[in-house]
């Protein structure tokens, strides 16, 4: 962290650098899609061919991505006005993956309860008792409402209801 007397640019990765990397990745992905689309078309690019649209869209992707790259290269580097943390979103994403994997094995109620406790923690909650109460009541309520009232299937899993 810089102190207040040092308003100079921080050497961190700024918005622009990130955007330039993103733009470069977008160009590459677009080029890959274009290559796939042209390969699938196999020369059949008549106006009414179903192979035309993928080629057109991926070509547009490449053009727009290049334009984005050019715009980014021409803008001035600005220090990030607020530094986002990447730990919390990564934690949330990991919890989501765990939730989805557990969903069909452990059932909705158990996996959702565990998920709520973990994610509230990741998102900065420090009231474990409150979180546990919510984590028990909310999934059971949702489960009963969806399966009994709305006839929508949710995996019951290990929870005997």
């Amino acid at each position, binding site marked *: 962290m810089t102190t207040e007397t040092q308003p100079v640019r921080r050497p961190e990765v700024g918005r622009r650098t990130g955007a330039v990397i993103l733009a470069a990745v977008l160009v590459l992905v677009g080029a890959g899609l274009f290559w796939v689309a042209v390969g699938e078309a196999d020369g059949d690019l008549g106006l009414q061919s*179903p192979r035309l649209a993928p080629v057109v*869209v991926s070509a547009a992707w490449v053009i727009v991505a290049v334009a984005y790259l050019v715009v980014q290269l021409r803008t001035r580097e600005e220090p990030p006005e*607020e530094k986002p943390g990447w730990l919390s*979103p990564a934690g949330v994403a990991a919890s*989501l993956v765990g939730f989805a994997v557990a969903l069909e094995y452990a059932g909705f109620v158990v996996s959702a309860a565990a998920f709520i406790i973990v994610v509230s923690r990741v998102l900065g909650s420090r009231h474990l008792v409150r979180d546990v109460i919510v984590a028990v009541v909310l*999934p059971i309520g949702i489960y009963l409402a*969806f399966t009994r009232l709305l006839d929508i299937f949710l995996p019951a899993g290990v929870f005997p209801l």
Partner: protein
Amino acid sequence: MNVFGDLMSGFGTVLSPEYLLYAAIGVTLGTFVGVLPGIGPALTIALLLPVTFSLDDPIGTFIMFAGIYYGAMYGGSTTSILLNTPGESASVATAIEGYQMARRGRAKAALATAAIGSFVAGTISTLLLSLLAQPVAKLATTFRAADYFALSLLAMVAVTALVGRSVVRGLMSLVFGLFLGLVGIDALTGQARFTFGTMEMLEGIDIVVVIVGLFAIGETLYVASRMHHLPEHVEPLETGSSKLGWLTRDDWRRSWRPWLRGTAIGFPFGALPSGGADVPTFLSYTYEKHRAKNRDEFGKGAIEGVAGPEAANNAAFSGVLVPLLTLGIPTSATAAVMLAAFQIFNLQPGPQLFDTSPELVWALIASLYVGNVLLLLLNLPLIRVWVKVLQIPRPILYAGILVFATLGVYAATGSVNQVFIAYAVGVVGLGMRHFDFPIAPVILGLILGPMMEVQFRRALLVANGDLSTFVTRPLTAALLTCAVLAFVVPYLPRIVARLRGRSAEDEPKKLVFAEDD
């Protein structure tokens, strides 16, 4: 006057106790979810879609959807005013003055002028919708494939060019949406495209998966990435003296004109393919600001700045229903979700809808009137309940949203793989938010892209492969010209500035309908 008879029969349907219950449930659910910070109408409907899967009554479902939509909008204005976190770009204008009013202890007046303004605008614009729907549907029967192609193109381009701060980023979003729309089996020939050899991709990417991924999961991940910047402070509602009324006589005097002007701006902009409510709300705000005698009050909580945009926002929704119901063309992200809801019931909005299911259409329109009344009755007296909803601790709130999002995708598709696709889309959504890419063009590209391609090929089939079919018909050519013009409009201030001899550097890069001149 056939319209009147049809509308009356619509009211006859809606006013049965069962459907009134649907309307009340929809309005309550919509307000509840809409009040949650960061959640706009599009996501509200997408999150609540699974609730309707087991209902086999399309009329009841759409009455509920109309309620959910209106409720989400009212709820969104509450959040904007009390918390300064607009759930969607259409309530950004409301938040500017509304939050300032709340900070100066005038929260009740701001909420009241928003609610009553929405009611006035909703009622007038629904009336316009009732009058316009059938004639437009009749006109639409003369539309040909080439016109539909041009119209979808215009709708996409307008959202991309007019909404958001950068056309290049908007186009990137649009292209991404078009790509997502291509994945799966081609509708006309059954050939697989961009499936990368997997079975999972053959069915294409479900719109619900994308919306939940981009809005719910993307938004939560984004919030997680900047946890320290969350506005936690809810402006309190003042108590005491205002027991008798929410608005003073002076407030009424200052509000009613902006309500009407907002309606007049909102409805046509909603009905034209111009990206839904974003443009008219900012236009209304700018207009009120320019007109106001007390211009210096703007930025410090001028009631006109809440009344106008809120009315425009609501009027635009009825406007958006005109092309959606009569042409089957969604012109905003929310309309695209509504279209997805129609398709779940195997209903295809368009000119035929008025012939094939008139009961549904008129019940839907009648339910808009009813929903408006219900909201006014529900909202102001219950405002304290909604403020409580705002005070749900953030970690719990976002955990709940994620559970609901996962549940929604799982219930809609019955597949954990689709849940993972939604998560992946959510990560993309986080990146888009971080780098300031607009979300709406993705949704419209996904919905309109396939539609556009089919119409393009159909038009060529009819014309024996002659491309000139897109320029020889005046209507088609005019629509295509509008699409080109939409790209120029955002740069007008810059061009004007150049002509006036000022440096274009001082001007905003692109018109975002909010700047001062």
